[in-house]
């Protein structure tokens, strides 16, 4: 019998994503993939997976899912998101941890808090057919992930494993960069010289508001008008994720995972890769301030971010329940409902 998570309620925009679809940008195929690749990797590691496996990306509002497998190990990472198992009363298992669920149990992912996105990984991953080497969903193109679209109520998202492995659960202390007030570092360019000096100064000193026009393609920012020097269109060239492009309106657009591979608007600056997970978590109404660094500094910051993520992953340990109770043995005996635990 095939194993699946049945979608009871889909949430707002719930898609299968992995680290992205590389190698086809020359054919106009966007990279897609997780908005926050760090949290994707942590969710996968908590579930006992390689970081490359596909997981479910949840935006704004989480789904409600029913286990249609003998057992499944799930893990949630990012923000303050929690797994809540339905029951009388419902049992919150917290976030940043794995948990074992059994056939028929219904759970939801909720309380995303400060982060717009979070990731639900399952041990063994989801059984979706890769398209061009990736399980990432590219909704505009209608391919990848689960049938090329966001999940909908009634879907059965297939699991690669029918049973969870026998092992203890894993949890970690939430990394503190989930706070939304950190400066976002950028490298100026590639078209810095298409902007006035005042525009560059405004970019690096003003506060920008993430408008409600925000999706997986990009965040439209509200802030001072960034003036062009000369024209506002250029001969189309390549776009890197994190590029801040400025069309004729002078209002910046920060491009994210599903951005077009090429475009004809000048790009005043590009968010460094170490900070891309931070902007991936931003939502309408959040404020962003930018600071400039040189490329070599950005590369160093990325290596440091990689080392910090490795240290976070190395710190994973079995969750310790309050008062010496063991969550998993409780779970086995169905006593879970109503018991409150620390996250660690």
């Amino acid at each position, binding site marked *: 019998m095939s194993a699946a998570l049945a979608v009871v309620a889909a949430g707002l925009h719930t898609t299968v994503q992995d680290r992205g679809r590389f190698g086809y940008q020359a054919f106009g195929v966007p990279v897609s993939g997780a908005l926050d690749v760090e949290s994707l990797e942590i969710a996968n590691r908590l579930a006992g997976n390689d970081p490359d496996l596909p997981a479910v990306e949840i935006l704004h509002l989480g789904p409600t899912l029913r286990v249609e497998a003998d057992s499944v190990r799930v893990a949630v990472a990012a923000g303050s998101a929690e797994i809540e198992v339905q029951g009388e009363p419902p049992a919150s298992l917290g976030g940043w941890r794995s948990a074992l669920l059994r056939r028929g149990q219904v759970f939801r992912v909720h309380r995303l808090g400060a982060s717009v996105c979070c990731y639900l990984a399952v041990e063994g991953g989801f059984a979706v057919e890769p398209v061009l080497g990736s399980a990432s969903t590219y909704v505009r193109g209608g391919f990848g992930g689960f049938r090329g679209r966001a999940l909908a109520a009634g879907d059965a998202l297939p699991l690669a494993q029918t049973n969870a492995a026998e092992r203890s659960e894993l949890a970690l202390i939430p990394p503190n960069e989930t706070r939304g007030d950190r400066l976002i570092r950028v490298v100026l360019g590639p078209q810095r010289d298409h902007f006035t000096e005042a525009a560059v100064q405004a970019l690096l000193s003003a506060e920008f508001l993430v408008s409600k026009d925000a999706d997986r393609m990009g965040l439209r920012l509200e802030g001072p008008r960034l003036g062009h020097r000369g024209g506002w269109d250029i*001969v189309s060239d390549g776009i890197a994720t994190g590029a801040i492009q400025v069309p004729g309106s002078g209002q910046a657009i920060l491009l994210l995972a599903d951005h077009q591979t090429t475009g004809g608007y000048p790009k005043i600056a590009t968010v460094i890769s170490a900070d891309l997970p931070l902007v991936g978590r931003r939502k309408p109404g959040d404020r962003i301030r930018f600071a400039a660094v040189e490329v070599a500094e950005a590369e160093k910051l990325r290596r440091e971010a990689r080392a910090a993520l490795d240290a976070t992953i190395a710190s994973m340990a079995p969750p310790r329940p309050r008062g010496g109770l063991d969550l998993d043995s409780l779970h086995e005996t169905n006593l879970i409902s109503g018991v409150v635990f620390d996250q660690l």
Partner: protein
Amino acid sequence: MQETSVKFLPCGDTALVVEFGDRIDRGLSDRVLGLDARIRAAGLPGVIESVPTFRSLMVHYDPVRTHAQALMTAIRTLLSGELDAGRSRRLWRVPVCYDGDLAPDLADVAERTGLTTDRVVALHSATRYHVYMIGFLPGFPYMGDLAPELELPRRSDPRTRVPPGSVSIATTMTAVYPVESPGGWHLVGTTPIKLFDPALSPPALLAPGDAVEFERIDRAAFARIQADCERGTYRVQHRDLAA
């Protein structure tokens, strides 16, 4: 020397642009494609992929495995010597029906250019186009250069829905919309063939550097080819061109 005119532009810490010029130009395109071929052949450590555009090449890299300085040094070496469009190129014969509702802007284009519709079709289908780049949409080929008599700015009222297969013109370019999308180009015909299929690798029929000729077909041929495409039995005519 050619190399001295090349600019390196940083795009954060995951990409850099090698810029050969600031305009759409066949000579610049050949150099972009030539460098692209050399970078693909060189297999530089940490390079993820390269994306040719009209006048520059974007090189995406993993900053954990390499860094911009090392990459620029390696690319400078690859830039030495004459750069030509090094990859093997193919010439494609793309069938197009320029009739009736399959060519919704043809009469308008004729009026704006002061030509007859037959003359517009004759000019459009008489040119061998160069695929400068693919972008905007998966599989969307920017092809040029259009006969100068056909040059028009984009439509002032872009359509919210352009049907897949629409053959279009704007400025010095012609293109085919591979999937339904919004679009501001003038639609002068429709091709029954599929230019993009994510189930195939590569997913796009055309590659940057390929050549394309449009062949006028009538409605009956359009219906026949469309049916063959749906059955998977149609093969788009093409042949290799000498590099």
